[in-house]
């Protein structure tokens, strides 16, 4: 199994000032997803080809004849970013081997939202990861179909209100918890899986760098706060991302060669979920008993993760 080698640690002063995802795009005020994308592109560098799924990041960046992309970019459809990225990787590899393009390493990456990753794009993602393409996949998870108007996905958290999981009298929002796609990616035996959040920019960029330098499939699940869809304040994006991590709702970790490691340790008691929930209109309908249920689910998922962190050993050992 491949291990991650030769990655460089990002430090704020060393971050490239160039924007490979340029300003002037049409994202909402306070968009956490586009912030993540901007940092991802900085960490990837210019020798990158992006295959993007249909979604918010696609429509805000590529209204013909404009483009925000300073790197080669292709958008084909919603569910197939991983498959398109597979083809890009294969094409570049064959052309380089046959001397038809410059003999230089260019990384193929695929970028999709949560719908394009965990729902409609899951099959293409699974196929690409299983086949072992040299492909880094970034899921920008804003926990619902935001581009189409805040409909629930399987990444929508338990009890959150969306336009298709409304807070009704009989059913109070989303009935299930988040599908654990990072775990599904680990089950594909790929060399690198990580979770990240732009509220922790250096951690995010280091993980992107590791994914880039992984010779083989890599997956990074990026928590992307969406003030528009979450009914939050646009100036609280960074704060919400931090609270998602501090509560243990979205822990930051990475899985290298099968070994789980928290990249943000929990030295003190985790922050209660109530702090996080009360800042968002999508959880406005929750009563104290509901908050207890949400907290219990978060605790259970956190325990599951901590068990892996404590017990997992690298596959190659």
């Amino acid at each position: 199994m491949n291990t991650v080698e030769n990655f460089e640690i990002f430090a704020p002063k060393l971050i490239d000032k160039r924007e490979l995802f340029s300003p002037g795009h049409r994202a909402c005020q306070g968009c956490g997803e586009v912030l993540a994308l901007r940092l991802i592109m900085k960490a990837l560098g210019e020798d990158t080809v992006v295959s993007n799924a249909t979604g918010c990041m696609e429509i805000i960046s590529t209204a013909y004849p404009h483009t925000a992309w300073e790197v080669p970019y292709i958008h084909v459809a919603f569910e197939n970013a991983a498959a398109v990225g597979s083809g890009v990787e294969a094409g570049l590899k064959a052309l380089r081997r046959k001397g038809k393009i410059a003999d230089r390493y260019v990384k193929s990456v695929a970028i999709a939202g949560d719908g394009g990753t965990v729902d409609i794009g899951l099959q293409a993602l699974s196929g690409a990861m299983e086949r072992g393409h040299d492909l880094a996949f970034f899921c920008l998870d804003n926990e619902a179909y935001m581009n189409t108007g805040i409909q629930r996905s399987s990444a929508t958290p338990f009890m959150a209100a969306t336009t298709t999981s409304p807070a009704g009298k009989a059913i109070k929002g989303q009935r299930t918890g988040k599908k654990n796609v990072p775990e599904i990616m680990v089950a594909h035996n790929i060399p690198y899986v990580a979770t990240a959040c732009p509220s922790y920019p250096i951690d995010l960029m280091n993980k992107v760098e590791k994914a880039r330098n992984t010779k083989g499939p890599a997956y990074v699940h990026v928590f992307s706060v969406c003030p528009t869809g979450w009914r939050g304040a646009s100036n609280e994006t960074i704060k919400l991302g931090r609270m998602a991590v501090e509560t243990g709702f979205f822990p930051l970790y990475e899985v290298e060669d099968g070994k789980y490691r928290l990249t943000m340790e929990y030295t003190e008691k985790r922050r209660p979920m109530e702090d996080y929930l009360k800042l968002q209109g999508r959880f406005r309908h929750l009563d104290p008993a509901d908050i207890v249920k949400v907290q219990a689910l978060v605790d259970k998922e956190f325990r599951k993760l901590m068990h892996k962190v404590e017990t997992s050993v690298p596959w190659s050992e």
Partner: protein
Amino acid sequence: MGKRIGMEVGIAAAEAVGLCNIDVAAVYPITPQSHIAEHLSDIVHDGRIDAEFITVESEHSSISACAGASATGARVYTATSSQGLMYMHEVLPIVSAMRLPVVMGNANRAIAGPLNIWNDHSDIMNQRDCGWIVMHAENGQEVIDMTIQSFKIAEHPDVMLPTVVNMDGFQLTHMIEPLEFPTQAEVNKFLPDRVPYATLHPDKPVSMGCFNMPEIFTETMKVKDTALINSKRTIIKIWNEWGKQFGRNYKPVETYKTKGAETLILTVGSMGETASVAVDEMKKAGKSVGLVKLRLWRPFPLDELRAAIKGCKTLIVMDRSVTFGGIGGPVATEIKSLIFHDKDRPRIVNYLMGLGGRDVMVEDFITMVERAAKKKDETYEFYGVRE
């Protein structure tokens, strides 16, 4: 030119691809295309050609991977059939809009439901408006020739459109036929390297697949339509080049004993060979019958078709698929609308036949011609249906 050998047509299709210096193939297996998938992977795994073979998890991903690979400037091939082509459907018009010259072999098979793995043309007819160049082979030699021609056509700077070569499932793909392969040197002489218009490479970053607002979408559609219509010139030019180099000539519409014939049969695909035998027999019996074979379905060769059917009284269109709730099969519907304003247009009789692998024999063509003479209107008929 190499010597004649006996080979299964599906395997021959893969061998033809193997002569074309492809860079990437992404193929998902489906009956009756699977021998193409298997044999092409043999060719790659044995190191006979230098290409990436992507064993995709679905046809949706095979055409998507082809799009990504083609966008890097690679020469790309895929093959499919029936449900697989239907599953690709969403991506097909995107590939043509992005002007990516993907070449596809399609082993024509009925679409479900109910499930049926045998031949008809319902798979490709359902892709009519996807903006691809669509051509049909009649026999194994044509499969080889048209596969090689397709790369040159699709990648030509005046075309830059994806191209699909249809071959009837089982009736053609699984036949062992006497075939001639061009040598590698001959193919190299005929088929130049691809020179892409734009590629995904950091040396010159471009954005592909940007979305269109209403202000520009209509213009994009017109460009795509014009590109497909204009491609006919280049298709004919390349077919003429092939004829000069290899002595086998290709035309958008082929005619067989049509001179002075009052009744013409029009076929698409492998049934043309059976129909030609039927025409011979009917001619012997003194009937005024000829055969028109439609090789190019998109862009539709209207001028060539008009010339081919000029002077006939009855045109019998053989449709191997159904346009449910419509006015006939897709080929007949198309021809009716195209010649509607023509003076002295022939009466059109339309049979829906050969569906889901039902054999259509020489006698069937003779029966259909005889019955056509007695028909009073232009309604369609499911030939041979048991009621």
